Every structure is written in C-alpha cells, then in structure tokens.
C-alpha cells in the first residue's frame, strides 16, 4: 500500500467543489493561505523541533520577485492544489481526516476543507447506509448457494438455511482503522456464528419451532464477535429467510408433515363418529325414558279408571245384587250374540244326521257389511227386534232342525 496514494483506503476525496455545495460559503483563499502557513509552521516546529527541512514557500513578497507570468502560473497551481482539499460529507456520513497518516479529526456532514495532499487526507464512512449480507443465496432466495446454505445440526442432520444479516457502521474510526476489509469480515462472522448456533440446535426445532430464537442467538453471537474485533459494526437484524430440509430429503419431510395432518384427520373422523353416535344414543335413551314414563302413566290411569268404574258398579250392585247381576248378564249376552253369528241347536235330536256347512256360513258372515258389524259392536240398549238376517238364519236353523 503506497503512502503516496492520496485515495488511501476506501472513499477518495471529492474533486474541488463549487460554492454553495455545503452549508458554509467558499473560504477566502488568502485567509486559507495564511492558515496553511501557520499550520505548516506549527507542525514542523512541533514535530521535529524545526530541525527538519526548512521548506516553507516564500510568502507574498517572494512571489512578486518571480515577476508577472511565472507568478500567475505559480499562483494558479497553488490555487488548484489548495482547492483539492475540499470534500463533501453527505448527511449520514462521517469524514475521518488524517494528518500525515495520523488521525486528527472526525468531521460532520457538510462541505469540508482539509489541507491538500500530501499533508492531510480523509476518508468517508457511511454510517446510515444499511449493508446487507446474504448467506446461502444471492439476490433471491431461490438462487441458492448450497456451499453456504447446507449446515450440520446438533442431531447430525443437514438443514438448508438461508439468512440475511443487516448491519450499519456505528463507529467510523473503528471501521476504518481496526480491521482490514470489515465487510468481508462481517460475512465470515455471520456464517461462522450462524453455523455455531445451528450446530447446537435440533433439526425439528430449526425447521418448525424456534427460528426467531435462532436468529436472536446468532445476532448476539455476531455482535459479540464484532465487538471483540472492534470492527465498529452494529448488527441490526438477522433474519432467517428460509429453512428447509435439503432437496434430497424434501419429499420424505413433506410426507412426514402430511402424515401429521393425516393423523389429525383420522382423529377428527373418529371424533366426528363419536359426535354422531353419542347424541343419537342420548336421543334414543331419552325416548326410552319418555316412553316408559308414558307407559307408567297410562297403566296407572287405566287401573284407576277401571277401579273407579268397578267400585261404582259395585256400590249399585250392593243395593240389589240379584237384579243387577241378572241385568248385566243378559245385557252382555245380548251384546255378544247380537254381534256374532250364531246357530242354535237342540241336542236332543242329536241322533239325526245334521249337515252344518261351517265354511259357507263363515264366508257369508265375512261378506257381511262392515257397518252392520260396527253398529252391533256398539254397546247398545237391548233392542227387541232382531235384524232380518238373524230372523232368516233362525228360520233356516229351524228348517235344518226339521
């Protein structure tokens, strides 16, 4: 690295700038010249006790001695030389000024002037710019860099992980002076720290659970390493873009995830069955209960009704037992015989041949009009007149008897 390089390191000095570029007006050249001489003198006196080269260029009077053309030329060269000391520090940046290689000041944003080369030089560091490192991919998560993204986990599995680290410069001096190529160093630290954290985590945890936690741990580790090196870098965020099993085993992992869902589905189906069966059973149970209750009420009511009827009849019966009994008997017989088919026979003539076509009689009875049967079913008052059919049958019977 040459000392004679005015652009030593990174940001080179800006070229001479016109007025109005910064927050201060153009400095007066004469004043600058005097200032320069004074600084130079101070410097040489301070450093080497004036024993060094005695080289201060002549002041105004000696310039006159050169005469017109040459004087103008020299003045012009001088002016350009002096103007090369202007530089601009943009908002969010810091300037670092070196005097003969020694750090002399840190400058704030604005138009700045330093003494021209070879006396002073400056470097500009952007503090606000957020720098990003992408590990395991470039530009897009899909364009993977497998060499960086495949990592070994605690349980000796391999995980494919892409992450990004964002950082800013918190200390311009540290950033410039402590470490060579700090940005590259940040990349190395990022990769190393993340791999250390992943190496201590289990595959399932990385894939399905604690990605934020891992990012936080890596973040802390990175920052502590940066602080140890004194890179002047502040790690602002660590984000895991993507964590997945390597392509070779992706299908198996997907299947395992699917299996987990299958399991849930099966359980849900079982639950659905249960939810169908149990309420139905409860319904049936409640029907059974209600029916039983209904039966109970009915049986009791019937019993009470029957008992009550009987008791009332019994009360009347007690008043006139014989008549009542006879009446009930005859009424019942009337009702029974009125509604059924009947044949009256006299067994005293049993010796005679008696032809009784039962099946025909039954057929005839079956074809009888329903209304007739119904009316006869009704417990009616004993009617003296019998239906024509009964009369007929009675006659028939008598004929048969004959």
């Amino acid at each position, binding site marked *: 690295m040459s000392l004679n390089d005015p652009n030593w390191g990174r940001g080179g000095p800006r070229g001479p700038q016109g007025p109005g570029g910064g927050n201060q007006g153009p400095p007066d050249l004469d004043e600058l010249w005097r200032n320069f001489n004074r600084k130079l003198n101070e410097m040489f006196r301070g450093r080497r006790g004036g024993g060094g080269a005695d080289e201060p260029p002549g002041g105004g009077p000696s310039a006159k001695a050169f005469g017109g053309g040459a004087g103008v030329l020299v003045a012009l060269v001088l002016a350009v030389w002096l103007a090369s000391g202007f530089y601009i520090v943009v908002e969010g940046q810091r300037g670092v000024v070196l005097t*003969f290689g020694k750090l002399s000041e840190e400058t704030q944003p604005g138009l700045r002037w330093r003494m021209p080369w070879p006396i002073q030089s400056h470097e500009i560091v952007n503090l606000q710019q957020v720098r990003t490192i992408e590990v395991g991919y470039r530009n897009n998560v899909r364009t993977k860099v497998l060499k960086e993204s495949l990592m070994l986990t605690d349980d000796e599995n391999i995980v494919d992980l892409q992450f990004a680290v964002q950082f800013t410069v918190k200390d311009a001096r540290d950033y410039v002076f402590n470490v060579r190529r700090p940005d590259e160093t940040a990349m190395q630290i990022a990769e190393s720290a993340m791999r250390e954290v992943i*190496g201590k985590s289990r595959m399932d945890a990385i894939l399905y659970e604690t990605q934020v936690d891992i990012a936080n741990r890596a973040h802390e580790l990175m920052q502590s390493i940066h602080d140890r090196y004194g890179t002047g870098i502040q790690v602002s965020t660590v984000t895991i873009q993507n964590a997945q099993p390597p392509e070779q085993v992706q299908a198996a992992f997907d299947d395992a995830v699917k299996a*987990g869902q299958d399991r849930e589905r099966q359980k849900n189906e*079982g639950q659905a069955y*249960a939810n169908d069966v149990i309420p139905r059973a409860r319904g049936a149970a409640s029907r*059974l209960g209600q029916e039983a209750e209904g039966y*109970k009420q009915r049986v009791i009511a019937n019993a009470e009704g*029957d008992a009550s009827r009987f008791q009332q009849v019994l009360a009347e019966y007690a008043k006139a037992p014989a008549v009542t009994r006879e009446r009930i008997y005859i009424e019942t017989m009337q009702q029974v015989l009125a509604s*059924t088919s009947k044949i009256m026979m006299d067994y005293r003539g049993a010796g005679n041949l008696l032809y009784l076509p039962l099946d025909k009689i039954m057929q005839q009875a079956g074809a009888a009009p329903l209304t007739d049967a119904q009316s006869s079913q009704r417990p009616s008052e004993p009617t003296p007149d019998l239906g024509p059919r009964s009369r007929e049958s009675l006659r028939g019977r008598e004929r048969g008897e004959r």
Partner: protein
Amino acid sequence: MKALGPVVAILVVVLLLVSGALFTVDQRQNAIVFQLGEVKEVVTKPGLNFKWPLLQNVRLFDMRILTYDDVEPLRFLTQGNRPVLVDSFVKWRITDVRQYFISVQGDEFRAATRIRQTVSGTLREQFGVRTLHEVVSGERDVIMNQVRELVDLDLKRIGVEIIDVRLKRVDLPQEVSESVYGRMQAERKRLANELRATGAAEAERIRADADRQREVILAEAYRDAQRVRGEGDAKAANTYAAAFSKNPEFYSFYRSMEAYRSTFRGRTDLMLLESNSDFLRYFRDSLGRQSSTRK
C-alpha cells in the same frame, strides 16, 4: 528571469531530498527504518517521520486485524474415523514488527502460510480426540478457544497475535452426506408411519369409546325405563287389588262379562248355542223353567 533556471533546479533538488527524507506512517501502520539493511528503528506512532535519504529506507506494515481464510476446506478425521470438511478463518494481527520482519521477512503471504500450517495442525489434533457430535455441537467453541490459545502461543514467536480462530463450516464429505440423507429419509419415514399409525389408533380409540358410551347410555336408559314401567305396573296392581278385593266374587263375574263382550264381537265368530242354555231359558219356556225339569 535569468535566475529562474537555477532557482527551479534548486527547488527540484530540495523537493527530492525532502521527499526522500520524510515519510509518513499511517494510523494503521507501523514502520521499520532500515539502515543499509539493518533494522535501525521501529516507528509505532503515526505521523510524519524523518530518515536519511538514500542511506536509510523504510518498510511499512499493516497493523490492522488481518484475515487468513481457507480457500479449500480441510479434511479432518474425528474420533471413530469419521471424516469432516472444515472451513475456518483466522483473525490475526502483527504485534511485534521487528520479530515479524525477522521471522517471515515481513511477507504477509509467508506469514499466512505459517499460520495455516499451525492452525490446521492444531485443528487436526483437536478434532482427532473428539467425536463428530462434539465437534459440530457441544465443543465447537471449546475447540475454537483451545486452538486459538495454542496457535497464539506458537505464533508469538513470529510477532503475530492470533485474535480468533473460528470454524466456519463443519460439513460432512459428499459420500457421507448421502448416507446422512438416507438416514434422514428413513427417520422421516419412521416418523410418518408412526404418525399415521397412532392417528389410526387414536381414531379407533375414539370410535370405540363412542360405541361404549352409546351402549352404556342405552343400557342405562333401558334400566331406568324398566324401573319406571315397573313402578307403573305396581301402582296399577295395587289400585286394582284395592278396588277388586272389596267383592272378589262380583269382580270375577263383572270382569268375565266384560271379557265376553270384547272377545265375541265379530260376524266371523260363530257360536253354536244349545237351546237349553241359561240365556235361552225363556226361549222355550215363558216361565224360564229349565229344560231339564221338562225332560
């Protein structure tokens, strides 16, 4: 104007002398001043410095933290002869410029070679006594610290401080990776099968439980229903008994009549009547005398 030529000449000579006699040492650098090849002075402070032109010359050394980063991952064997590929980087810094110059002639490349040899040797030792799991997980930082200390001790002799030795990648070689993938696949398959099987078992359990609950619910309901019916029957029997026991004989008559009524009720019921039945006693005899008496 005549005097201009000599003036310019003198000026040029003076400038040459000055530029040969002055040198700056940057904030980031240290310098060694050599006098005819002999180390005369070590400049550690930044700033403008003086040397004798022509007689003395100067070499500058970068004093910042430098990096040695492996180009190719190194292959080590862990305990149990399992190979791993290890990618590491070393952060180092020159602490003693004089020593550094004497040892490696101030050549950064030679210094890096020296560092690489020491670090890889030490790493090899450390890996050899540890299992793969320890290397990857448990003792990663222990290894890094131990290697750093050991290497630092060794490289002090060449005027170099080792700030840090960090493992970047610890990977399995390709052929081993394949077998790891195979194992991972088998593991996932096991997990998937287990999940499916336990899912089926769980579903079956839920179904069986539901069936059991149904049986229990129905049985209990039946039990309760029967109890209620029994209560009804008992109450009814009690009521009947209470009423009918007042006159059992009349009850059997009354109840028989009722039963007759409801038994013989249709045309399809055919009755064969004997003329001497009690019902028909007036049918033959207006006084109702039994036929047997007439016989």
